[in-house]
């Protein structure tokens, strides 16, 4: 198994200023000491709390933001130290679908021109580029009449499909998908998911897939990382994570998704209680402890380490030995 992307002890701290004239400086620990590797050909999912650093990781890999410390490798290339040209060539091998679909489309040009842009930059002749645009638009089920429109004339789902088209038009080997289906209806979502699977098989693509939609993540991903407040708290293959989650936060995520059945409306919900924690001043010990119903004294003082519980199932929680979370599912 060859790793295509490797993050080692990556940290990213953003500075925020406040107080009078912004003289007080504080740090948001957006990504805090995360190591993970994405194997060639797999779909690697990241789920987690909103604001836990998922998008930041997605932006770190093509170096759209610089890391504070740690190392990032893409296909052996040290992204943090790559020269401008190396970086450009590496980026060409990656496609990115951003979380806000509108932001990857230029508002002043037509959708076709936006999708064509990466091809032009890569020096493809105009005629060939136009054919490729039409081909890729068909792949994502975007009608040709939509191609000549401007982004603001598109519905949310159409914008999202257009940005997927743009991301895959260069036939990259690695595609970062940040909430790529959140604006899609379930049928178009199904088409896009099936499309992603087909593309993956045909071109042996590797995906980094970020989503809040757990059934979708389960459907698509081979392995899943769960993040909470800048930390990786659990990593496992999909089947294992859904069958035997080890971390209380993973359990909360799995249990909180409302099932598409109105009769289950009043089901027992396992919701995290308490306020969402501060990001500039995260809780001591385990970051989940103020909201965790399993917390004991040790959780308040000592930060749990990420440990391997067998065949690459990693989790960071003090109480894994004592708890059997499977019961709660």
């Amino acid at each position: 198994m060859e790793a295509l992307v490797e993050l080692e002890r990556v940290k990213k701290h953003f500075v925020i200023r406040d107080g009078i004239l912004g003289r007080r400086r504080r740090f948001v620990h957006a990504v805090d000491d995360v190591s993970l590797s994405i194997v060639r050909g797999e779909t690697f999912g990241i789920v987690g709390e909103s604001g836990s650093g998922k998008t930041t990781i997605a932006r770190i890999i093509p170096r759209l933001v610089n890391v504070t410390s740690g190392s990032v490798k893409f296909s052996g290339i040290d992204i943090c130290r790559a020269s401008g040209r190396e970086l450009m060539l590496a980026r060409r091998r990656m496609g990115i679908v951003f979380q806000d679909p509108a932001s990857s489309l230029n508002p002043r040009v037509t959708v076709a021109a936006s999708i064509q842009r990466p091809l032009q930059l890569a020096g493809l002749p105009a005629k060939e580029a136009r054919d490729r645009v039409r081909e890729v638009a068909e792949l994502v089920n975007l009608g040709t009449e939509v191609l000549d429109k401007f982004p603001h004339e598109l519905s949310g789902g159409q914008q999202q499909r257009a940005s997927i088209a743009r991301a895959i038009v260069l036939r990259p080997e690695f595609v970062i998908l940040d909430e790529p289906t959140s604006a899609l209806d379930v049928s178009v979502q199904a088409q896009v998911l099936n499309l992603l699977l087909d593309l993956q098989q045909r071109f042996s693509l590797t995906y980094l897939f970020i989503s809040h939609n757990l059934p979708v993540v389960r459907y698509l991903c081979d392995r899943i990382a769960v993040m909470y407040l800048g930390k990786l708290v659990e990593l496992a293959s999909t089947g294992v994570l859904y069958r035997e989650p080890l971390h209380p936060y993973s359990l909360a995520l799995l249990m909180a998704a409302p099932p598409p059945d109105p009769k289950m409306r009043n089901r027992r919900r396992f919701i995290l209680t308490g306020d969402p924690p501060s990001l500039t001043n995260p809780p001591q010990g385990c970051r989940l402890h103020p909201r965790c119903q399993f917390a004991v004294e040790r959780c308040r003082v000592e930060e749990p380490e990420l440990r391997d519980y067998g065949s690459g199932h990693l989790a960071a929680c003090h109480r894994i030995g004592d708890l059997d979370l499977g019961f709660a599912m």
Partner: protein
Amino acid sequence: MAAKLLEVSGLEVQFDTSSGPVRAVRGVSFDIAEGEVLALVGESGCGKSTTALSILRLVPRPGEITGGRIVFDGVNLLDLDECSMTQYRGKQISMIFQNPLVALNPVYRSGFQVQEAVMLDKVPPDRAWRAALNVLKQVRLPDPEDRARSYPHELSGGMRQRVMIGMMISRFPRLLIADEPTTALDVTIQAQILDLLDDLRHEKRMSLLIITHDLGVVADIADRVGVMYAGALVETGDVTEVFEKPLHPYTQLLLKALPRGPKNELRLESIPGGVPNLSNLPPGCPFHPRCQRRLDICSKVEPETLEIHPGRTVRCHLVGGESFWKR
């Protein structure tokens, strides 16, 4: 039955584009009672956001409302002049937009924008600021005091969404329109936001029109559902009835397209065929080219809306119409 707060009837919206008119909303009728939650679901691009924007009369140009009535609390909003309409926006009816970046101004701090909204009700600035912090806390924004001072680009996608939700509920509107309000939120926060909306409707009798692709959210919060396809409402009804006995073939397929397991177990059922082109709809039922159950009549005559019992409607030749009598 509670009084109707909103009654939309025969709504028509058209965009005049260079490639011809796009009929984004075609004869849509529905109503919402006080304290009721109606969910609109449907194909991407079928006119849900446009329907919602029509209620506030905010359809962007070249779009135009070409027909119908939108009666809010006894007043047809389409008859009002722009100045009186302004009285309704924000205070009576407010809207959470699909894309938070549209609603949030990038050059102002997020808390300031909520404060501004509250101040529109003649609340003094310091009290408005406290109200803003309070509402940001209610929408579960972490570190509300800090985050209130952040610019939108410094927030994560889900935080921006929560700031917008806060801004829109800060004035306790009577009708809240929420276009995909929880797509950027993780499910634990989503659950808390749904609870918050549910509280508002019970305590403040707020009505909610929620647009979402997440059928789990619909099942969780809606009293009734409307399913849209190609600009028209093809099915409406009580949420349990629609989920258990969907009548329209599009609704039936929609419920089947949900992922329910890992990929190696099954391939997702998507609805075959392409999304219809709203500037050039097929004759007859707009769904017929993709419908596996179509009849001969389906490609010729567009079905009318049939009311099965009060509050339960469907627009399909399989139900009612000639074929119904022949069976």
